[in-house]
């Protein structure tokens, strides 16, 4: 997709808070945007690098909790008479820490991914997320457990004397999420179109061959995992300071499943896939709820959709549309071909 088209789309999106004033709809768009960031990050690891990582929600939650805890301050007793206390930090710093913490976990996961393959890696990644969830539930002193962390401060930039931007109201949050998701998209696009991205794709497609041309598989697995995890952590931090309440349910496996549905339905290994999938599965539940459809039915529909997509549109929506479009056009013979990223054309 050309720069102009991207600018146009961003421009259009930027106007939304000006005419869509309903807080409810803005809220849906904001949470969908946050989920799209998470889905894009998962796509990097699952789609482009081909790693079956189903513990992604752990990174999201770790980003959320670390950021929330640092911004609120906390105190834990590590031994009977020794307490570790941290004073509240500015929100922007907490969010950076949250992103960093998630990235660190991604590093660990990347190293593990090299040792533990295929179905076993699926199980390890899910187990990791569950352990984190159980820690969040049980370490009440730190996390308040199921009683949740409340009153998480919103992001404030600048100083009270000069210009202060407060991301408390919905329109401001909308712009923040829009900006960060656009940045994440650009980062992923740059990465994927570089030799590093090609290395990740190569190790997905043919690992022995990739090794034979000098690609260090561990290095790129770890790189993909770190960036993917950090980005998910950033999404989590955004979520924490927007919704301003965080409880251990944020680590539920079902949220990983939602991200996976978004990525796979949209088209894994494509740049636009997680966005399309994110829009569909971010907005669809609200639409169904408005129609009065029970949440259970909605979930059944999601399950059925997943199965149908696998059978009917195995590559996802974006590549299917792409192929349809390509069959109508013809490639001019003197156009320098672009590298196919994953199974779709680069946008």
């Amino acid at each position: 997709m050309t720069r102009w088209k991207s600018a146009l789309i961003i421009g259009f999106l930027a106007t939304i808070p000006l005419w869509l004033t309903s807080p409810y709809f803005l809220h849906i768009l904001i949470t969908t945007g946050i989920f799209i960031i998470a889905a894009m990050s998962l796509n990097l690891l699952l789609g482009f690098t081909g790693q079956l990582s189903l513990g992604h929600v752990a990174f999201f939650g770790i980003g959320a909790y670390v950021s929330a805890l640092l911004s609120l301050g906390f105190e834990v007793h590590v031994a009977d008479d020794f307490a570790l206390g941290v004073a509240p930090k500015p929100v922007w710093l907490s969010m950076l820490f949250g992103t960093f913490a998630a990235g660190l976990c991604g590093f660990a996961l990347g190293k593990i991914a090299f040792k533990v393959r295929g179905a076993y890696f699926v199980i390890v990644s899910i187990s990791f997320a569950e352990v984190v969830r159980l820690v969040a539930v049980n370490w009440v002193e730190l996390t308040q457990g199921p009683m949740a962390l409340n009153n998480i401060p919103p992001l404030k930039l600048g100083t009270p004397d000069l210009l202060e931007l407060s991301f408390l109201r919905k329109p401001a949050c909308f712009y923040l999420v829009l900006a960060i998701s656009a940045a994440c998209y650009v980062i992923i696009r740059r990465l994927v179109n570089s030799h590093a991205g090609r290395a990740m794709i190569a190790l997905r497609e043919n690992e022995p061959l990739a090794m034979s041309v000098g690609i260090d598989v561990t290095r790129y697995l770890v790189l993909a995992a770190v960036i993917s995890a950090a980005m998910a952590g950033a999404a989590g931090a955004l979520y924490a300071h927007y919704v301003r309440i965080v409880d251990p349910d944020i680590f539920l496996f079902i949220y990983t499943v939602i991200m996976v549905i978004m990525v796979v339905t949209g088209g894994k290994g494509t740049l636009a896939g997680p966005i399309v999938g994110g829009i569909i599965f971010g907005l669809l539940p609200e639409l169904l709820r408005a129609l009065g459809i029970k949440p259970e039915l909605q979930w059944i529909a999601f399950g059925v959709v997943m199965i149908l997509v696998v059978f009917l549109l195995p590559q996802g929506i974006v590549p299917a549309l792409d192929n349809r479009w390509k069959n109508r056009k013809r490639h001019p013979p003197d156009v320098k071909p672009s590298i196919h990223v994953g199974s779709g054309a680069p946008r």
Partner: protein
Amino acid sequence: MTSASAIVLKVIGLSLRFGGLMAIDDVTFEVRDGEVLSLIGPNGAGKTSVFNAITGYLRPQTGDILYKGNRLSGLQPHAIAARGVVRTFQKTSLFGGQTVFGNVLIGLHLSARQRPLAIILGLSSVARDERKLEDSAWDILRFMGLESRAHELGSALSYGDQRLLEVAIALAAHPRLPLLDEPVSGMNPTEKIRFMRMLDEIRREGTTILLVEHDMRTVMDASDRIICLNNGRIIADGTPREIQSHPEVVRAYLGERATRAGG
């Protein structure tokens, strides 16, 4: 080839066991600078296993592998490739979901500067480096005669073109010692001639080449020296003329000979 030629690769006492089977049994040989050395032998003689051991895909139980004096044994495959020892695979091995151009770009990985931060920041030097890589890719495609197919998917190519693409990918990694595993298998005569011509050009540049092949005519025409393996052991080591009439070699191939008529 004078005996004063520099030794590029030294394989010393290599042994590799699979379960109860000795795939390679105390193999020792040298590869001299600028020569084309072919490994031949009946199926299961251990030729590909030697390649796998040299390039780090399999770990031998005993033995040492020295490339220009540096130890290769124990290194990971990608590190060995980075030193210039690049292998191709016996079975067609491509990045099927990528275009021909994309395949070669991936092969150029070692030529790219590793700078993840610069990539993310989108520095213009990264774009410049990318363009240089793309130019190199076009050069390689032209050399292999594949530039007209550049935007086709690797999996959509004809068999012969796929084999050429495999060599293109290996060339992109700038091998100083390419290890080609049965490069002409399955090719028709025209494709074989094309391949031979390309091999000659590489030779002219002084590149040392290690070859595993069954096709006797290719082996006899292309090689400066031939080593014959059987049951994991070296049974002969000499010039094509010497090997052709070597009694051990003939014996090893007896029964294989009829089905392996060269060309």
